Structures are given as C-alpha cells and as structure tokens.
C-alpha cells in the first residue's frame, strides 16, 4: 500500500464479497456466468425462486461468491470426522463415500495422518528429564516426511488422500452418495464437528457453499424447499438424537417425539464472517451488550423454549440506563422453560425474566411453548425443574458482577479448561511455565500474561473451547478435536504453518514458532523462509498426570476451570 493510502481518511468500505469463496483458502477459480447458469439448472437450485431474494443479496451473486466448484480424485478426503467446517457440499457429479464406522474402528485418524499420541508411561515421562531437547522447538524433519506421503497439493490447496480406497471400503462400513446429494450442511449451519469422514469414491465434482450463502438461501427462498430439505435432514439425522440427549425429553415416548419434532426449529443467531479474522470482529463487539444479536427480550411473552445447541448466549436484565449481566448459557442449557412452567401452573404468564442475546453466534433448537405445555399436561415431562439445565447464574458472592461481565464479555465462558490465575496468590515464579515446558520437550505452550479482572487473570492458554473457532479453515485439519467434545489438539506432522488458527483464536492462545533441527538451526524451506508451526496448550494429554501447570503451581494460584457452569470457579475463589 502506498504512503498516501496509509494516511487517507477514507477508504472503500469492505464488503461481504470482496473475497469470493472460490478464491479463498488456496483456491483460485472464478465462477463464470455459464457456471452459474448450469448450477441454477441443477436440481438443487432449480426450484429456488430468485424473486424472494433481496436486491443486495441476489441468488446469482450468492452462487457466484459463496460457492465454489471443487474437483476431487478418487480417494481424496473431502471432510474428516471431527473437523470443524463451515461449508456444505453438494455432489454435482461422481460419487462419494461416507464412512459409517464410529469410535476406535474409524479409519479417519489414519486417513488424515493423525497419529494418536498414547499416554506416556511413568518411566517415559521421567525420561523427559534428560531426553528433552535443549534447543527450542525441535522438530524431527524425517517425521514430517513420512506423513506427507499422503498429502498432495492441488493448486494452493493441500489434500489428504487415501491411497487404497478399496481396502478402506472393505474394512469399514461406508455408504455411497451419488450426485444430487447434500452433505455437511448440518455441520456448517450448526457449527458442530463433522460427524463422518467423506471421501471421493471416484473422480467427482462437488459444489461447496459456505454457510453464509446457505443461510441466505434458506432465509430468502420462498419456496423453502431447501430449508425444508435441510430441516428434514436435520430432523432425520440429528434432531431426535439431540433431543433425546436432553434430560428434559428423556422420558417421552417415540410417538410423542415424532409429534414434537415437526414443530421444533433449528435457528441460528448472530453472525460471523470468515472474510475477516474472527478476532477482529469479536473485538469490535466485545463488551457491547447493546450490540449483541437479540434472541428473546426481557418481558416478552414466553412463546418458546430455547435449547442451546452451540455458541454462547448472555442473560441480562435492564438496570437504569444499562444492563446487568446475570448469567450466561452454553450448549445444553435451556432458556424460557421456567417462565412457561410458571405460566402453565398458575394460569397467568409472566414475561421472560431476562433478555437472551447471542454472544457472537448461537445455534439453538426453538420449541414452541404450546408444545411444551402439551407435554407438561400429558405428563411426558415428569420433573421439569430437575431435568433441565437453566442458565448459569452466579450463586456465590465470590463471582461478582465485574468478574461475570469480564468472563461473558470476553467470551471466556466458552472455555472448558480456562486457565485462571489468582494474581493475589501468584508469586510470578513461573513454575507453571517451566512445568509446561518440561512436558513439551522444553517448549512452553502458554505465556503467563493475559487480561486481568481485578485479581483474576485469564492467561493466554488454550481454553479448549466448546466452540473452537480456531478449527475453522485449517486446511489440513492439523488442529482437530480429539473426540467429540474433547481436547483441541494440533497435529505437528500435518501443520503447515499457515497461521489461520493463530489468527482466528480470539484468546491469543495459539502461537506460531520457528522450528529447529537437532543442532539448533532454524528449519527453512526451499525459499529459505523459516518453517513455522502452530503450537498451543494440549492439556498434557499424553502425560500421566494431567495438566502440568495446575499441578506445578505451589500457591494454589493457577487452575484450569470449566466455565460451563460457575460452580468450579466459585469453588476456587471461595477457598
């Protein structure tokens, strides 16, 4: 950029489609009008009525900018189980296979070159004392090469492929999907991990649409055909199991469930745009309660019960000219049931006790109040208070409003292993950092700094969020979730150092490091640029004792806290 442009006071407003999807993340192609025409002719889109779309967001442009056409060879892995993706796929031609095996039999890890690190035995762990490399960030160059056998570059994109497709098909249960099928839309819309690995069974051409485009189509399609399709699919595949996992609906019969399901809606609130790093956007909105997308307003008639599926919501009450944050909700919690119950029992309904707003983004199952009342009346829900998980409220004086606001505004309530350091007890001895280094080949994986609220610091260490935005856009899936809901780990061997995760993490938990060889020289590629890798806290998952930092703090100052409820935090503060 020229000197002049640095100082100019005006600039072009950045727009949604400044970077078309087809040109993002290593892809480099442009959809021509002819391509769009052929798409519109396809069954998937032919029934969509373009007239329903807004003038600023026409269907064609959605297709041009939020869609890309991707070719896959036989064996190419399209999505991996556990990956977090933000796009949906439609098979234009060819066929793909969906792996149905779950759990340990799944070949996913092997396919994508992930080697599960076994937990170290006692003596192996002890051996770290003398085996740790004294050079920083040592990586064995040979180890990387062995994995890259299964990687290939297509344009600017790295793809993992299965060398022996037939073997995989023989050994594992798969389902074949021909042209005309959608997959991945639930994960894209719902921001949940991919539930299965999908690979190309033969040379195929797929349409990939990012979730914003999908959302808009669903929103503006008057015909609601795609929406119905997706919701049907959701209902068919996921809604029932999701609802069943809720204690609230655990006891209802299959028939009642079948009656219930058509009325439940899957809704998303808030937004984020992958064009800009997530952090910048969340930074803009941080702390401004007023700007958060509204889900349900305080005092409104309680006409629905919200079951949070992913994301975080804030509960706030009006207080003079501002709002009191009284609690928050994370996945699995229910909002609005108490009000509905009260109305049902007393015959008179009160409004929602607090306002529900989405922090950044939220995906919820919305159940109409009348359905809930029917279930209450029929006795299908036996013990509503006990069986639902309401919002998280601070029950102890220990967590005061300051702290609650700090946690919610900063979205730290995402974290399942948030590192909270009590600065009134911390002696800045760095034993935690040293312990972290000892368990990671002499390389610490966090820094003892971070935002402070009065006396508590949330250090920049990976919180293993419920909704790990860092995983979005990892090209190789090196950053992955161990198991559904488990730890977020970075696979050294497949990390290519693109820094997407580090840039995306809103909590500055991921850092890029220059890697070195055994003599301490920095590893460089053919252009002499240092080879970077992403690193972060892995909660010492391969160590026998669990997170070393917490165990190493001599003053009970450092704790890894699950903020899905406040009980752990209160327990720690009240010691």
């Amino acid at each position, binding site marked *: 950029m020229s000197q002049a442009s640095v100082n100019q006071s005006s600039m072009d407003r950045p727009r949604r489609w400044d970077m078309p999807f087809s040109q993002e993340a290593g892809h480099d192609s442009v959809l021509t009008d002819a391509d769009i025409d052929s798409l519109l002719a396809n069954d998937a889109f032919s029934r969509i009525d373009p007239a329903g779309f807004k003038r600023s967001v026409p269907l064609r442009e959605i297709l041009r900018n939020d869609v890309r056409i991707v070719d896959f060879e036989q064996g190419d892995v399209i999505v991996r189980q556990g990956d977090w993706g933000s796009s949906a796929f439609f098979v234009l031609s060819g066929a793909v296979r969906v792996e149905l095996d779950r759990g340990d039999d799944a070949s996913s890890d092997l396919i994508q070159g992930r080697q599960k690190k076994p937990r170290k035995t006692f003596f192996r762990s002890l051996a770290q004392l003398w085996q740790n490399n004294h050079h920083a960030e040592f990586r064995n160059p040979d180890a990387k090469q062995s994995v890259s056998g299964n990687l290939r570059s297509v344009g600017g994109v790295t793809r993992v492929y299965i060398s022996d497709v037939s073997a995989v098909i023989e050994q594992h249960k798969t389902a074949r999907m021909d042209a005309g099928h959608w997959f991945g839309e639930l994960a894209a819309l719902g921001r949940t991990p991919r539930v299965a690995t999908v690979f190309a069974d033969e040379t195929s051409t797929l349409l990939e649409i990012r979730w914003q485009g999908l959302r808009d189509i669903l929103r503006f399609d008057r015909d609601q055909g795609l929406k119905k399709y997706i919701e049907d699919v959701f209902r068919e595949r996921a809604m029932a199991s999701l609802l069943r996992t809720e204690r609230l609906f655990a006891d209802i019969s299959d028939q009642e469930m079948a009656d219930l399901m058509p009325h439940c809606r899957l809704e998303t609130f808030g937004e984020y745009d992958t064009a800009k790093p997530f952090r910048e956007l969340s930074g803009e909105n941080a702390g401004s309660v007023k700007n958060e997308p509204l889900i349900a307003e305080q005092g409104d008639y309680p006409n629905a019960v919200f079951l949070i599926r992913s994301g975080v919501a804030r509960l706030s009450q009006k207080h003079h000219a501002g709002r009191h944050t009284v609690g928050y909700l994370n996945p699995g919690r229910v909002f609005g049931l108490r009000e509905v119950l009260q109305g049902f029992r007393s015959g008179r309904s009160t409004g929602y006790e607090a306002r529900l707003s989405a922090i950044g983004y939220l995906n919820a199952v919305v159940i109409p109040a009348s359905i809930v009342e029917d279930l209450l009346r029929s006795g299908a829900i036996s013990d509503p208070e006990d069986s639902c998980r309401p919002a998280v409220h601070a029950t102890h004086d220990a967590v005061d409003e300051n702290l609650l606001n700090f946690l919610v505004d900063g979205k730290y309530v995402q974290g399942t292993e948030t590192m909270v350091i009590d600065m009134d007890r911390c002696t800045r001895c760095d034993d935690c950092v040293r312990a972290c280094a000892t*368990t990671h080949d002499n390389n610490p994986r966090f820094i003892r*700094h971070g935002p402070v609220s009065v006396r508590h610091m949330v250090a920049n260490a990976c919180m293993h969020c419920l909704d790990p935005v860092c995983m979005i856009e990892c090209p190789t899936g090196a950053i992955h979730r161990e198991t559904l809901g488990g730890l977020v780990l970075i696979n050294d061997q497949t990390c290519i150092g693109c820094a997407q995760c580090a840039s995306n993490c809103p909590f500055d938990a991921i850092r890029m490091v220059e890697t070195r060889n055994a003599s301490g020289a920095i590893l460089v590629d053919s252009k002499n640029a240092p080879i970077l890798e992403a690193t972060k806290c892995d909660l010492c998952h391969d160590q026998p004792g669990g997170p070393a930092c917490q165990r190493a703090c001599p003053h009970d100052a450092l704790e890894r806290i699950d903020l899905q409820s406040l009980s752990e935090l209160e327990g720690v503060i*009240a010691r």
Partner: protein
Amino acid sequence: MTHFVRRRITGLTLVVVLSLLLTAATRLMEDNLLRPRTWLGWVLVVIVLFLASYRLRKQLAMLPLGASAAWLQCHIYVGLLSAPVFLLHTGARWPGGGIEVVTAVLFLTVFCTGILGLFLTRMIPPRLTDRGEEVIRERIPVFIRILREEAEASVAGAKNAAPSEVLSDVYLNHLHSFFQRPKNFVSHVFHSTKPRTALLNALDDTRRFLNTQHEQTMEQLAACVRRKDDLDYQYAMQSLLKYWLFLHVPLTWGLVVFTCSHVVTAMAFTSR
C-alpha cells in the same frame, strides 16, 4: 471458614502437637539413657532431605507425584517443625565444634530465609495486583524502553511544534536516568513513594512556565513517569520474590553437604 484458613489451622495444630510429642519423647528417652540426640539428629536429617526434595519434585513436574501446592504445604509445616526438632537436638545450646557451628548457621539461615520467603510470597502478590499493569518481569526492560521512547518523543515535540526547553531541561536533569532502567529498588521495597512524588513534583513545578500545548506534553510526560514508576514497583517486588531464593536454595546445598559430614563424624565418634 475458608479452605485456606482451615488448612492453616490444621497445619499449625499438627506442628504444635508433633513438637509437644517430640519433646515428650525426647524427655522419655533421656530418662531412659537412650541418647535422644542421635535419634533426633536422624529425624532432622530426614526432615532436611525431605525439604530439599521439593526442588527435585519441581524438576519432575511431569510425573504424577502430587500437586506442588500440597508439597509446598508440607514443606512449610515440616520446615516449621524443623525448628523445635533443631532446638531439641542441640539442647537449645549453641554448638561447640566447627562443623556443628557451620551446620547450625546454615540451617538457621535457610530456616530464616524460608520464613522470610513465606512472608514475601504471601504479602507481595496482592500488592502487585493492586498496582500497575501485570507484566512479566523479563519484559519490563522492553516496556521501559517503549516508555522512554514515548517520553523522549513527547519531549522532542510534535513535528510542527517547537519543543519546550523547560521540559527538555527537566527531562535531562531528572528523567533521563530515570527512564534508563528499573530504579528506586529500595524505595519500592519499603513502599516509599518519595521518588515518584519528587519526579512528579519536578514536572508539576514547570507548569507555570509552559503554554497550553506544552502543558499537555507535560501531562503526557507525567503519565509516562507514573507508568514507569509502576513498572519499577513491579520490577522491585517481582525481583524480591525471586531474590530470596538465591539465599534459600544455594545454602541448602551447602547445608546438605555439611549435614552429611556432621552425620558421619557424629556417628563415628558417638561411642555407641
């Protein structure tokens, strides 16, 4: 009663009870001509080795050997217990031989520095939290440099404004050395704000000689001084938290060596 208070009471009670028990046992052994000094000496050896092993546990952070916090609690209370055991072992008399005197001096120094460390680690952190930004000690010089550059830039003036000679003088006379490195260590240890006040007063005194713009510059300078002083405070307090270990840990090495020699000579010559 909070968990920590309960823990403290339990620990202190245990120490007191064990001391009383040991005193009674010592008395009983003396009455029975069992020479309790030898036995107490071995107890002291075990105590010293246990206390010294805390360092080892810190190096073995990767093994599930128990939380460091639990180890520290044991370290503190066993350390407190070592004092009555030491008194019983020496009979509350100053020893006469060379090795014994050196061992006693080392032990008492390590003990006293341990008590000092206990006080420091409990008193300093809240004071650190209350004042200034939470910075990592190793990065303080970087922040000092940033502040220095900021201060110098303010004094040098904006591009199109003439710098104030008054401020330049004040900067050269009072602030230049102040912004070079962490300062006023001793004052901060004793929580004296005199140096800070002196500098701020020096700046404030120039107010009558400054125009509005330079007054703003002066306010910026004062803000830099305050932040730098806060950094100095952080530096001094965090340094204290690290320096006390320079006495406590190295002397423990010496203590262990001398304890071994004392054990060997005592056992060789004790006519048992």
